[in-house]
């Protein structure tokens, strides 16, 4: 097993004929993901790398039975793309796009139909279950099938840590980038719950950063609800207050949003927290013993 994406994923790419959408569709096809449809308004009837392109998600779902979508459309149109996916019954929707306005995301996050689906992102690298399905922009070569789940607010930091795991011979069940924005579809807790319920996942790596209090809530959740060990890493101890550190959501605004506060909450809950990316792999190796 894995979480969110696996052999049964039938993927639809929103913005398949765009530069980013096209580039990553080729990569996802190369890693044997079942890409069943693409959507680009006005280009219905065409094909992209053998994948049929539709004008609307409505048509694409009807014709192909897609159950998951990945969004590469530009930020001004991203919320609309998410609504279109939700309204057409897709179970898992992943928005890669960076720079989606916060107010757009608040509307999406409160949309009643979201309750029947899982939205990952925006501003995220996607989801990848090694050897099963790749719905992401992550470099698949550094992954290896295995038993460690990875959930993260950051892209390259995830790659760094996954690479260290793989080099130690430790494989991954699924890696999920939940996104670096202030408002995201799915927080750590929901992903931790899925990993807890996944019999194949024996340890989870959680990669957090400054901004918000999602790490604290995850720590409380782990303490009361989880058996699976979690190894955590938090970035941004040196971040100054009030400055956005690359990710729109990575900003220290007092109290709970600091790396220090998050790290303390993790330790208080009994979660092993690494001080650098290399130590994460060491702690995972210990946890798996």
């Amino acid at each position, binding site marked *: 097993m894995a979480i969110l994406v696996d052999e049964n994923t039938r993927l639809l790419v929103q913005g398949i004929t765009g530069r980013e959408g096209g580039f990553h569709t080729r*990569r996802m096809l190369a890693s044997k993901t079942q890409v069943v449809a693409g959507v680009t308004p006005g280009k219905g009837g065409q094909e992209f790398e053998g994948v049929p392109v539709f004008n609307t998600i409505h048509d694409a779902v009807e014709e192909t039975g897609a159950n998951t979508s990945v969004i590469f459309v530009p*930020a*001004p149109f991203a919320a609309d793309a998410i609504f279109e996916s939700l309204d057409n019954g897709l179970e898992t929707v992943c928005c890669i796009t960076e*720079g*989606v*306005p*916060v*107010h757009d*995301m*608040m*509307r999406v*996050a*409160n*949309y009643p139909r979201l309750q029947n689906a899982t939205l990952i992102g925006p501003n995220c690298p996607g989801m990848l279950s090694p050897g099963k399905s790749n719905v992401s*922009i992550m*470099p698949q*070569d*550094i992954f290896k099938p295995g038993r460690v789940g990875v959930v*993260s*607010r*950051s*892209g*390259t*930091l*995830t*790659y*760094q840590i996954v*690479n260290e795991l793989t080099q130690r011979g430790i494989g991954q069940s699924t890696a999920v980038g939940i996104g*670096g924005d*202030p*408002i995201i579809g799915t927080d750590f807790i929901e992903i931790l719950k899925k990993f807890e319920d996944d019999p194949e996942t024996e340890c989870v790596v959680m*990669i957090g*950063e*400054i*901004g*918000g*209090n*999602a790490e604290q*809530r995850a720590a409380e959740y782990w303490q009361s609800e989880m058996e699976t060990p979690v190894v955590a*890493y938090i*970035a*941004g*101890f*040196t*971040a*100054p207050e009030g*400055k*956005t*550190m*690359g*990710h*729109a*959501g*990575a900003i220290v605004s*007092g109290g709970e949003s600091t*790396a220090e506060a998050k790290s303390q909450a993790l330790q208080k809950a009994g979660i092993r927290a690494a*001080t*650098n*990316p*290399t130590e994460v792999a060491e702690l995972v190796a210990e946890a798996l013993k």
Partner: protein
Amino acid sequence: MDLYEHQGKELLRGFGIETLPGVVAATPEEAKRAADTFGGTVAIKAQVLTGGRGKAGGIKVVKSPDEAEDAARQVLGMDIRGHTVRKLLVEAGAAIASEMYLSITVDREAKKPLILFSTEGGVDIEEVAATKPESIVRMHLDPLVGLLPYQTRQITFAAGLEGDAAKGVGRTLTNLYKGFEGLDASLVEINPLVLTEEGQVLALDAKVTVDNSSLYRHQDIAELRDVEAADPQEERAQEVGLQYVKLDGDVGILGNGAGLVMSTLDVVAQAGGDPANFCDVGGGADAEKISTALDIVTSNEKVKSVFFNIFGGITRGDEVARGLLSAIERTNIELPIVVRLDGTNAEEGRSILAENTPPNVKTEETMLGAAQRAVELAREGGR
């Protein structure tokens, strides 16, 4: 994007928020003229993008145009928490009966707008939360529905307001929510919101933060950005689309990906060093972009060594190494640059670097090793 008080007030007036008449002044003479126009008591207020200006002496209440000129002379040029005062807001006086607090923020956890109202205004809301938490009324809104009239009533009644005050605050709240939505704000805060002796409800201060991601649909607000107040390196980075934040240390830092760069800063600090900046050059191996980033990082005179931390992902390590070499050739940086290359094709990348690099470029295999090296080089004095 944070706005100055006078900018925030002007935008909020467009949504029906009432304020006192005010004029922006950049010289003591302008402040004097404004005070003369208003007559009587006026407030001279430093315009800075930081809090705590009152405590720092950035707000003066004066009784005559001459006093206004003196006060303006004192406040202009003042440094408030690292921000130089270059403009003042000269505002007419008012007879204040009571001070309140009103804000709307984006609650990340609830994923909803959050209204905070308190009859205790004029002090930090954190302080009120600590000393008089019962005076704060909170309410989450459904952004798909907006602020409903009953919710406004619920807030004002819960706060114990009556008569004109209740109506005035209710109206202000309704308008402020329109402003919050209309401006794509992540924060609108009025502290204090005052009730005058004549029964008017006025915004005496305004703090507005607009979501950067929404600026494409608010060209007018984007143009309000104060280019002069920005740090020169941060300004240049903004122009070329690089994520750069200046810090106080002497180890310049670049990397690909926000999380990895944040982690790099932390590792440098753990190795006993002081990061000089955050700089995310993004994915890819575009030599032009890398050389611009290197140039920005090293144009900060404090920088004594540079740590370039790269994880080769979809853009492979060998491509990144070639891009980096060509970038270094374009600049004439003599400072020591420690490059740590990991990820796909990292070995190929490292050997390309080893064979071709100028003497000031050192390669390291691990992040910790590279951090150590960069810190040592900065201590040795770099240039």
